[in-house]
């Protein structure tokens, strides 16, 4: 090969076989597609080779790397012309090994020796190498300090900057002392590139050693730089670094909290009036925001220079602005006017950040808020159609959120939500949901059935087109969408027809999905039973295989046994195949259906019933066996009682539970322009506390319903938000009425709104009316609760506690008052404790802990979270006076750790209360 290369027959770098990649041992044996073919033909496949790679590497590593080492050593001292080129080649090789994961740390000292050069390309490669290995080889890192420090004083600002960046990126904690000097100089450097690097360098230092960073007073320097510097990127870097430092410091010191807040609300700190006049192009925005109104006007003219901030820095500033609470509506309009041209920016991130500012600032002004929706519609739609599909998706997710909040504003734009055949499924799914949401009386017909008879062609339906789609997941989603629209509408006539047509398409997945929907429809509109049953009766149960669909079909067979001629016989044939039925859900439904059928048509069903009970009693699945036994005894006891239990008169379900509470939705809205919107869950459900980001200013109480506003606006903002809901959430009514019954696992607030409780449980009963054994289940679960010592107290019956501190069993507080109190009071006790794993296990039931604590007169105000992190807010009051205790309790169910934060009116008793709380908590697991 060398021969060939020498004679320029092949390029020396490239693999002679595939000419695609650089040739080295790894490539020749593992990556080259020719090699892969050979391996494959030998019966060895890639996945086997992935595992064998480490040992393989070891095998040639010694040869290959020691070779490099030799060559580097020879070059280190050489000053011959052309050395740099040879060095570059060698460095490249080293770095390419490093990238594919081969350990080349053994050439560290040679690399450092070779780095004594003025060639900036070589230097850069060397920095890259050093940055990669220093962290895990602190001893080696020490070798580099010298030359990096020297480079930090180089006359070329590029080299100064690069060296400083590398120095800060070494990541070796015991070398921080060497950082302080260069960093300090860097922040004062005459070149903006060096200052830019230094500003981020401070943050790196902070992560290595917060103490060193604070001792050197770097944050203050950064603040100074942020206000004075003329370079926009330096200002932006100062801002990001400060934000991160302050938000991390906030956990430990009160002062940092104040500093952080001052970014928003304490203008005088951020901007010294005099300094402003010196600054022409940078930082105006945040300065302006913080500026007193009159003075601000002078500078408004300069605000259009915000363009001089890079687009990415604009995003940071805009995010900050969205947290700012304007003093009055004039200020809001000023800000919005200044930012309006940002909506025409080609960068989606800038536009979304601007929209967030608009939406959050106008929350209190309902009509303006609505105008904002109208204003942002076009820019959003343009963004959706102008980027890559991935970018579209991110924007579309936000549009989805807005459509869900205010469907009527978008009702005329429904055509934008039509799916294109070549869109990825994740886009189509969002669009379908939006179509569903905007479906209202006036346009439903067009969306569901764009009747085109006037044009002489057969009626085509947009959604029905999708149903006929060859794309199966898409077809399923579309059917669900049609069903959803049907469940929302009053006039479902045409839609039911559509659904029934789906059943005639004779595609298995279509039939399956439709059956489930027809079942739901019948539960809401029993009056349609006649039409539906006629069609459903024609479906052969053999063509239905999916458990959910099968269960739905069986439910209908049982429920409408009197209308379906063949019902007993179909059930009978299904029971014959009992052993082949793998889904317990289907078997449970089969039992129930056969009983229902029996009660209506005893002679025909008797045989089937006998067989079903026999199979059920012998079933290996606990629930099936239990239910069979229950029915058996019930029938034995009294058939008329059985009739009453199994076949009670049914109420039509009015509203199906929504999957998300309005509270969750509001929280997601607060976190506009973040991942929460894409995932459709608030950030606490998918991030750890320390990773909420610099903008998650309040992770405590504020986010129970609203974002971070200063104390005095809390109440106002909440009222405002309610107005907003009235205006924008046409769905809010039904959400209210259905409460939290069915979203228990996700998030709930038990005492948040007492009136929903009854509504909720009503909904719950409706929902399980399908499941005739609900009573049995309830009792069963009660029994289990009692076993675990969680019996629901009939009333507030405080367990007698051997404690000096007596609590008021009937203490009440409304959530608003709680929030306000929480903000006002300082934390008096903060501790981490461990709890018994059994207690954690009991928490699988989200109601368990609140119920348990209630027995000790500690009331749950709100709770939320998802495994493994749960958060609860509790409230308690002293028995004889109104002194209150507020508790935030964060439970990690996997580590069995609990973080407690207690705030109290009466600080002196807070410790006693903490003990009481702990002892109560620890009893959770005990019988």
């Amino acid at each position, binding site marked *: 090969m060398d021969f060939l290369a020498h004679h320029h027959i092949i390029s020396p*770098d490239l693999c002679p076989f595939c000419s695609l990649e650089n040739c080295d041992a790894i490539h020749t044996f593992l*990556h080259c597609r020719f090699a892969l073919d050979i391996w494959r033909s030998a019966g060895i496949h890639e996945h086997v080779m992935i595992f064998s790679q480490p040992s393989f590497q070891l095998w040639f590593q010694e040869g290959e790397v020691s070779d490099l080492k030799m060559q580097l050593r020879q070059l280190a001292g050489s000053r011959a012309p052309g050395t740099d080129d040879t060095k570059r080649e060698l460095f490249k090789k080293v*770095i390419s090994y490093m990238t594919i994961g081969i350990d080349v740390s053994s050439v560290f000292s040679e690399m450092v020796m070779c780095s004594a050069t003025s060639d900036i*390309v070589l230097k*850069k490669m060397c920095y*890259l190498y050093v940055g990669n290995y220093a962290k895990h080889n602190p001893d080696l890192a020490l070798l580099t300090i010298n030359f990096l420090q020297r480079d930090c004083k180089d006359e070329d600002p590029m080299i100064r900057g690069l060296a400083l960046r590398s120095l800060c*990126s070494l990541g070796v904690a015991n070398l921080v002392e060497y950082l302080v000097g260069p960093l300090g100089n860097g922040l004062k450097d005459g070149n903006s*590139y060096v200052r830019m*690097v230094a500003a981020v360098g401070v*943050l*790196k230092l902070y992560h290595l050693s917060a103490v060193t960073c604070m001792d050197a007073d770097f944050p203050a320097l950064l603040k100074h730089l942020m206000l004075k510097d003329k370079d926009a*990127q330096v200002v932006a870097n100062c801002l990001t670094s400060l934000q991160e430092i302050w938000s991390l410091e906030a956990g430990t010191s009160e002062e940092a909290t104040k500093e952080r807040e001052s970014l928003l609300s304490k203008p005088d700190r951020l901007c010294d009036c005099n300094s402003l006049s010196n600054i022409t192009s940078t930082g105006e925005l945040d300065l302006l925001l913080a500026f007193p109104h009159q003075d601000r006007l002078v500078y408004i003219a300069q605000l259009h220079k915000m363009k001089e901030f*890079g*687009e*990415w820095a604009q*995003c940071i500033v805009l995010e900050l602005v969205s947290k700012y609470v304007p003093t009055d509506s004039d200020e809001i309009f000023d800000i919005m006017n200044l930012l309006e041209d940002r*909506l*025409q920016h*080609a*960068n989606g*991130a800038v536009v979304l*950040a601007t929209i967030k500012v608009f939406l959050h600032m106008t929350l209190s002004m309902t009509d303006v808020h609505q105008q904002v929706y109208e204003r942002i519609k076009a*820019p959003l*739609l*343009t963004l959706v*159609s*102008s*980027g*890559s*599909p*991935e*970018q579209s998706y*991110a*924007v579309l997710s*936000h549009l989805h959120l807005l459509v869900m909040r205010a469907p009527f504003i978008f009702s005329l*734009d429904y*055509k*934008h939500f*039509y799916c*294109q*055949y*070549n869109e990825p*499924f*994740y886009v189509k799914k969002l669009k379908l949901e939006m179509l569903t949401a905007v479906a209202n009386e006036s346009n439903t017909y067009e969306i569901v059935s764009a009747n*085109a008879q006037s044009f002489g*062609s057969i009626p*085509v339906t947009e959604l029905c087109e999708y149903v*006929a789609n060859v794309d199966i*997941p898409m077809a399923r989603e579309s059917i669900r969408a049609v069903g959803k629209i049907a469940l929302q509408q009053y006039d479902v006539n045409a839609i039911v027809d559509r659904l029934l047509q789906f059943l005639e*398409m004779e595609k298995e997945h279509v039939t399956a999905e439709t059956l489930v929907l027809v079942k739901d429809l019948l539960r809401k509109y029993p009056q349609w039973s006649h039409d539906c049953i006629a069609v459903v009766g024609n479906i052969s149960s053999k063509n239905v295989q999916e458990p959910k669909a099968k269960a739905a079909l069986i439910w209908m067979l049982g429920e409408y046994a009197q209308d379906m001629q063949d019902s007993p016989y179909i059930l009978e044939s299904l029971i014959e195949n009992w052993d082949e039925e793998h889904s317990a859900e289907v078997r449970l439904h089969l039992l129930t259906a056969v009983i229902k059928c029996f009660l209506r048509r005893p002679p025909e069903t008797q045989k089937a019933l006998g067989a079903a009970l026999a199979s059920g009693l012998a079933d290996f699945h606990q629930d099936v066996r239990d239910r069979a036994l229950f029915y058996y005894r019930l029938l034995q006891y009294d058939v008329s009682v059985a009739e009453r239990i199994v076949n009670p008169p049914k109420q039509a379900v009015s509203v199906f539970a929504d999957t998300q509470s309005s509270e969750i939705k509001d929280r997601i809205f607060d976190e506009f322009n*973040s*991942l929460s919107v*894409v*995932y459709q869950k608030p950030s606490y459900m*998918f*991030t*750890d506390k320390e990773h*909420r*980001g610099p903008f*998650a200013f309040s992770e405590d109480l504020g986010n129970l319903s609203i974002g971070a506003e200063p104390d005095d606006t809390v109440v106002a903002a909440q009222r405002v938000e309610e107005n907003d809901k009235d205006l924008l959430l046409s769905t809010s009514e039904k959400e209210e009425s259905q409460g939290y019954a069915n979203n228990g696992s996700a998030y709930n607030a038990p005492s948040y709104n007492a009136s929903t409780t009854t509504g909720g449980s009503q909904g719950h009963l409706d929902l399980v009316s399908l499941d005739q054994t609900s009573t049995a289940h309830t009792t069963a679960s009660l029994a289990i609760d009692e076993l675990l010592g969680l019996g629901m107290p009939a009333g507030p019956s405080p367990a007698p506690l051997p404690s000096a501190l007596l609590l008021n069993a009937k203490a009440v507080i409304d959530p608003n008052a709680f929030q306000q109190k929480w903000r006002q009071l300082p934390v008096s006790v903060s501790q981490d404790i461990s709890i018994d794993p059994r207690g954690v296990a009991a928490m699988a039931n989200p109601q368990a802990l609140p119920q348990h604590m209630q027995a000790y007169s500690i009331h749950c105000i709100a709770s939320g979270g998802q495994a493994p992190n749960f958060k609860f807010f509790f409230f308690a009051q002293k028995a004889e006076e109104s002194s209150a205790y507020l508790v935030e309790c964060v439970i990690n169910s996997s580590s069995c750790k609990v973080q407690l934060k207690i705030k109290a009116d009466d600080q002196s008793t807070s410790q006693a209360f903490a003990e009481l709380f702990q002892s109560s908590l620890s009893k959770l697991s005990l019988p």
Partner: protein
Amino acid sequence: MISQFFVLSQRGDNIVFRDYRGDVQKGSAEIFFRKVKFWKEDGKEEAPPVFNLDGVNYFHVKVVGLLFVATTRINLSPSLALELLQRIARVIKDYLGVLSEESLRKNFVLVYELLDEVIDFGYIQTTSTEVLKSYIFNEPIVVDAARMPPIGPAALFMQGNKRMPGTAVTKSVVANEPGGRKREEIFVDIIEKISVTFSSSIMLSQGRPDLEQGYVLTSEIDGTIQMKSYLTGNPEIRLALNDDLYIGRSGISNFGYSGSSGTGPVILDDCNFHESVHMDSFDVDRTLSLVPPDGEFPVMNYRITQEFKPPFSINTLIEEAGTLKAEVILKIRAEFPSSITANTILVEMPLPACTTRVNFDLERGIVGQNADFKESHKKLEWSIVGGSEHTLRAKLNFSQEFHGNITKEAGPVSMTFTIPMYNPSRLQVKYLQIAKKTKTSNPYRWVRYVTQANSYVARI
């Protein structure tokens, strides 16, 4: 704040990997690739561009078959991350001339150099090719565009690459021409991606067949004016558009087809602009002025729902011939002047699942046509070259007796195509003025138009 950035090949190989914060595990690239590859067991659903796995958020975009990925643990703005990934891809392309696995592998040192300047400790510094120029010292190793592994034209479209292969000027912003000096030139491309959905046309299974064109259900043009400047000295440029150009359709319902096609004003529903664009005289004389930065960038994105004449009409006819056979007749007619030639026209149509064999009857004497039945996807593919009118007859054979409606099992008919020097919106660059600072030769000015099918579908 970005924790890591990496680029994976289609096979999942790590081509570039940069860790900025060290708070995400090293094996994230492999974890990511496994997750994306096996998103759903049946492999039918694509992984969304953003997902969370064990507390790590993964963002990815696909560019020319490569996966550009970023990870973070914080609740970042998804637009920010995805936009960034797209920009990184663009910056790399600006530098390397060609973006491909090969060019990345050959230039990885340069790529790392770029990445270090684009992101510092997870925070975005700049993605401007112009600004980066002063920080970058490695020279690109130019990869011959012709030697790139062949990616079919269809593949280029599938990758969701909104920029056209035709506009890909494969010239690095930093590398010198073989001749030693740079050619002064500027490219302005007006790229329009059109989406049209035709309603179903009539179908008679027995008796006289009757071909009828469906009407337009929805149509939209997503346009971009893309610029790539190789001018030295950053002169100011003035770009004059149609005099009768209007932005915003206030008062007109979004999909009302009021204006007649072919004449009348060009009305944009909405548009956005690159940050370098000044709109000062736009209201007066419809002129955009800007100082173009180096590299490729969109001057303006726009969206039109105004009526326009679809470039192709599609007629479909299905005739059932007994229960085991059927015949499909597809007729495509070009509605644009014959002086224009469309490239790479591909017509696709899913056929019933029980189709086993298809016999094609192509027009005689016409070269470049090709029809094929892709058995694994049960799909008919027909490729055509050029405009005018073409007809395809396909005889289907079914493995089992076919009952019910074929139209429910087959279709819709979709088309992909590229039409150079044609844009249905009639938006024009009337002139491109370069404020001259040098007395040297007049720079080359390229203004090109191209239309591409985004979603062009006729229901049956």
